[in-house]
């Protein structure tokens, strides 16, 4: 019976500790923020957005730095190319400043244009700051007969619909780049949506598809297993891929609408004072030397933008994407 007593004691202590802990989280006072802040990532753990979100928020509670003074907890709510997480965020998140989310442009904007079951759009979300910009690049497998955009287009024109492209899902940056590329080059191509950037890249490496649009950062890391033909941006990427031409240089008129901007946002209705506080502190946190060093090590292109810049970028994207996606049903 000695064992029985031990177990009963254990449960008694367990219950006491649990009740103390739950009391602690109920009592709240003081200035914002006085407890950890959660950031919802609408993609799986291990993906580029998740990985970067974890990196850029790691200094939030650093005792020697005056950033947020509280740690940021990443919560993954993946599904349907981000729809599940962002729908939750726009409709269910509390607007007390403790529920924030990571955004991906153009993904969430194009989804809000094309689908009628999205609960989010640029009007019910408040940008805080932008940390990165990852352009889409056109890639082919290592043994591909295509060595340039011209090679690929020559084949595509002779074989309409035969060239398969992988990308990380529907209406994400890769798909936007694909749609623009198809329209501007006047060819007919086939898009094969994958469940994420990593599997989409693997499909190109293994020759399951003939080509693909993928993140510059991921493609840069896999340069030995793929050929990078062009970049879907207005200028070349100077740090990581200075020798890769833009699609425009290759004669296909594609702008930077597909560039994947990543940053942090709050739900509408969050206290303006809190938004102001976050908008002032978060860019400083992104700009931390240690964070920048880690981002560079991880091959993740950084582009820090403040709240006003992001607001302007969101608006501009909404206009250009509406034009591009006009007449495209899901």
């Amino acid at each position, binding site marked *: 019976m000695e064992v029985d007593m031990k177990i009963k004691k254990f449960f008694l202590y367990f219950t006491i500790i649990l009740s103390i802990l739950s009391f602690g989280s109920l009592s709240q006072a003081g200035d914002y923020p006085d407890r950890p802040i959660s950031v919802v990532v609408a993609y799986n753990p291990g993906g580029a957005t998740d990985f970067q979100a974890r990196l850029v928020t790691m200094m939030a509670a650093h005792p020697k730095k005056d950033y947020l003074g509280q740690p940021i907890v990443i919560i993954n709510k993946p599904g349907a190319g981000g729809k599940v997480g962002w729908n939750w965020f726009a409709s269910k998140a509390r607007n007390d400043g403790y529920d924030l989310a990571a955004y991906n442009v153009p993904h969430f904007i194009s989804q809000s244009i094309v689908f009628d079951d999205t609960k989010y759009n640029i009007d019910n979300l408040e940008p805080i700051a932008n940390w990165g910009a990852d352009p889409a690049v056109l890639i082919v497998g290592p043994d591909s007969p295509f060595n340039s955009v011209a090679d690929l287009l020559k084949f595509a024109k002779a074989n309409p619909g035969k060239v398969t492209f992988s990308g990380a899902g529907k209406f994400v940056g890769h798909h936007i780049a694909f749609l623009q590329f198809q329209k501007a080059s006047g060819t007919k191509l086939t898009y094969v*949506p994958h469940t994420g950037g990593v599997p989409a890249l693997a499909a190109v490496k293994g020759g399951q598809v003939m080509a693909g649009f993928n993140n510059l950062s991921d493609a840069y890391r896999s340069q030995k297993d793929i050929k990078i033909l062009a970049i879907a941006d207005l200028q070349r990427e100077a740090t990581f891929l200075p020798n890769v031409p833009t699609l425009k240089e290759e004669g296909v008129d594609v702008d930077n609408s597909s560039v994947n901007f990543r940053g942090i946002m709050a739900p509408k209705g969050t206290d303006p004072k809190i938004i102001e506080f976050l908008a002032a502190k978060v860019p400083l946190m992104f700009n931390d030397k240690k964070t920048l060093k880690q981002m560079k090590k991880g091959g993740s292109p950084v582009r820090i933008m403040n709240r006003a810049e992001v607001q302007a970028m969101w608006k501009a994207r909404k206009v250009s994407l509406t034009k591009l996606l006009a007449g495209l049903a899901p």
Partner: protein
Amino acid sequence: MEFLSYFSNVFTFTNLLILFLGTVGGLLMGAAPGLSPTMAVALLIPFTFKMSPEQGLIMLGAVYTSTVAGGAISAILLKIPGAPANIATVMDGYPMAKAGKPKEALHYCFISSFIGGVIGIFILIFFTPVLAGFALKFGPSHMFWIAIFGVTVIATLDSNSIIKGLFSGAIGLWLATIGYDSVLGVERFVFNPIFSGGINIIAALVGLFAIPQVLSMLESKQNISDQFEMEKRSLSQSVLYNISRIKALTVGSISGVIIGLIPGAGGQIAGLVSYDQIKKISKNKENFGKGEPDGIIAAESANNAMVGPSLVPLLTLGVPGSPTAAVLLGGLLIHGMFPGSNLFTVYAETTWTFIDSLLIAQLMMLVFGLYISGLAKYVIKTPANYMAAAITILAIFGTYSVQHNFADVIVMLFLGVSMFFLSKFGFTAAPIVLGLILGPIAETNFTQAKIIADTQNGIFSYLTSGPLNLTIISLCIISITYGFITEMKKKKND
């Protein structure tokens, strides 16, 4: 023999401490329902920011190894698999414990995990260059057939009745279609917004296994200790018997290794496939499901043999061989280590130290796992009402922690209560969970295959051409035919 020269790096005080904490923590996390290996590794990644790349990887590797094995503890003692990888362990582990041999069952679990795990890591050490390209050969058509092969396993998984097994599997496959289609983004069967994210696999696992167990504990008002006692069993006896089961160990390790190399399949399928195989080739088929040690040995050697090979495509190509390996990719990138040949040249020291530490982690998992087996008497002696309360708390916390979503908890409880009533009619949970795991793999890959095939010669020729497709198709046919023959024989004997 390059790997030998880096062993000394593992044996520093800090590294050993990290290994120790990772292993013990991993065993406990694995045993808690809801905390799957994938979740455990994802939770720990932020902690590695402050560590050196070596230390960070050692911790993640140790946790990956031991959570996979830890899930078997609750599978054997409570009939609740700690993670999807341990579903097959329940089949014979729990009956064995119930028959008064819980300690022996735990012994086999950790010894087999160790043997399978070490074989898997040796595959990683010696065959990485040869096998590196293997993962890339698997396109949508092959992955579709792999999922179909898994479906053929469903039929024979439930030893009582093929019909009930298939029916349960179909329920699982249907549950898997709830939510958004992962390729085209179309919404299906979303009756209520809480289903828009689909049925979370961990929520389903916890609900289908843990809740019926809680309800039956309350129903019977019995202590587990009234059902079974902790027996005296010497470790050396268990080791000798375990090693003599060469067939089960071979089947388990080979299935684990192959499935580990295939991208995205993972331990959940490894355990079940190897369990099914050993059941089919064993001489004492009728003992399976009633406490046959070979069932535990095959399942546990398989899910740990998967760990090493799942890192082969990850380290060489950045293509994760299992969902947990996918999370581990983040752990590598954080330290600026990109998968590819650089890992074995520029970062050779870190990479080899990491691989060597996985071997030591297997050993630690064995030692502490066996030690924990001895403590299992506390679980057994716990009165049923305390146990039921504790499991319920863990089930709710575990489910909520996956995505911080209360809707998952509701789904978990609903599935659990339904399962409790279904089990009264002889249905079992394992085929439902397997259907839920295989559904998305089959569907996503079929949709992709269809899109690609339409640019070529059509879906039929795309799915049936090439040696790899034909090999997997023949495996499916063998599996189905075998199931039928066994069933016919059984009928004749009756």
